[in-house]
């Protein structure tokens, strides 16, 4: 059976990828000059004790018993800035500086989920323009 060694970076504290934007910790990362892996723990499951009212309302409207697809959404860090990966545009969307970050990842993830839903449902999402350009009338 191959592979018992964890090759990605260990996440030591909640601000690790803000304090160290390069994130080159292992020998291999230094060798290739590139961070290996996600800048957050993709397998972290949500803590429903810290869910926001907006997200509770979203679940109710969609008829879901839990966060559904948002369970896979986390606050990540790109170039030392907090950001959320939007799968619909295949890119990172940055969290504005005026939003104060909580001191733990679970609360940050809830903020990330709320921001992402609002962004995806807004008229300024690139998918809206894309749809207008390519939709079949």
């Amino acid at each position, binding site marked *: 059976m191959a592979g018992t060694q964890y090759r990605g970076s260990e996440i030591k504290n909640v601000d690790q990828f803000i304090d160290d934007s390069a994130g080159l910790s292992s020998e291999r990362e230094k060798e290739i000059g590139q961070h290996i892996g996600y800048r957050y723990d993709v*397998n972290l499951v949500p803590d429903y004790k810290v869910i926001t009212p907006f997200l509770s309302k979203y679940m109710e409207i969609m008829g879901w018993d839990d966060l559904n697809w948002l369970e896979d959404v986390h606050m990540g860090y790109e170039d030392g800035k907090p950001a959320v990966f939007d*799968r619909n545009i295949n890119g990172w969307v940055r969290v504005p500086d005026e939003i104060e970050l909580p001191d733990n990842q679970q609360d940050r993830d809830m903020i990330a989920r709320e921001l992402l839903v609002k962004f995806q449902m807004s008229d300024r999402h690139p998918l809206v323009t894309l749809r207008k350009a390519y939709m079949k009338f």
Partner: protein
Amino acid sequence: MASISDSDLKEMTQDERVKALGMTSEQLTGRSMFMEFDADASDRFLYPWAPEVDFNKRIEIDSDQMTSTEVNEEIKKFMDQGYGTIVLKNPRGKHSIGVGILSKLNLIIEGSTGYFGVGLIDGPNVRITGRVGWSCGENMMSGTVLIEKNAGSTFGAAIRGGDLVCRGSVGSRTGIDMKGGTILVGGDTGALSGFMMQRGRMVVCGNAGKNLGDSMYDGTIYVGGEIKSLGVDAVPAELTDLDKNWLTRKLTQYGMVPTKGVNHFQKIVAGKMLWNYDNLEPSEKKLIL
């Protein structure tokens, strides 16, 4: 861009529309879109183009004499009319039923579907009382799909999000290339399940076939029964309290908690030896393959 009306756009060719909307001048450099959230964005819960549907408004469709395309157009038509609960009768194993639903909806399919059922969906809650063919829920983005009986191969292929649930057993290559979401299987799963899995969670209450999690990059597989064999780079991991809580909550949601609980589940994750292949590590490649 906002000044161009839909009627103006309708008169244009696709190329003209793309240019008029400024989509050809965008500079795509690097990985980032350099976009920022609007901290004051309004509270909206549905896509701008999503129809307003009411779960309490219910209608039935008898699909006995209809083609798959006609069924899907009928579903769309009723959603545009505000129906939030649609019951589809006599599907008779038709292929590609219920695909591309991009909004909230309760869809109840009374019977069995063929291949590619409810693929490419983003939001609806679907219940299928019979069996499903290949690739059910392929590329699903969000929502819930509950299948009461068995499912074919490539169940939940490339799923991105949502809950895809089969109370019975499923074929091989379940969750191949899955990139998120949750797949729950009440019975057994076939060979090469979780092949090239990139993230998300798969739960198999019964047994798993050969090469489970082969070449998985990330994500988690939980198995309640026996595993025939693990694939390349799939390794056992410790089942934590967080895992047990999550398993209990998710399985309870669909009434699938085994009588002996979840403590006996095995957890499989990626060994991450297959990450970042490049020409700098040919010797490592040989060791792994």
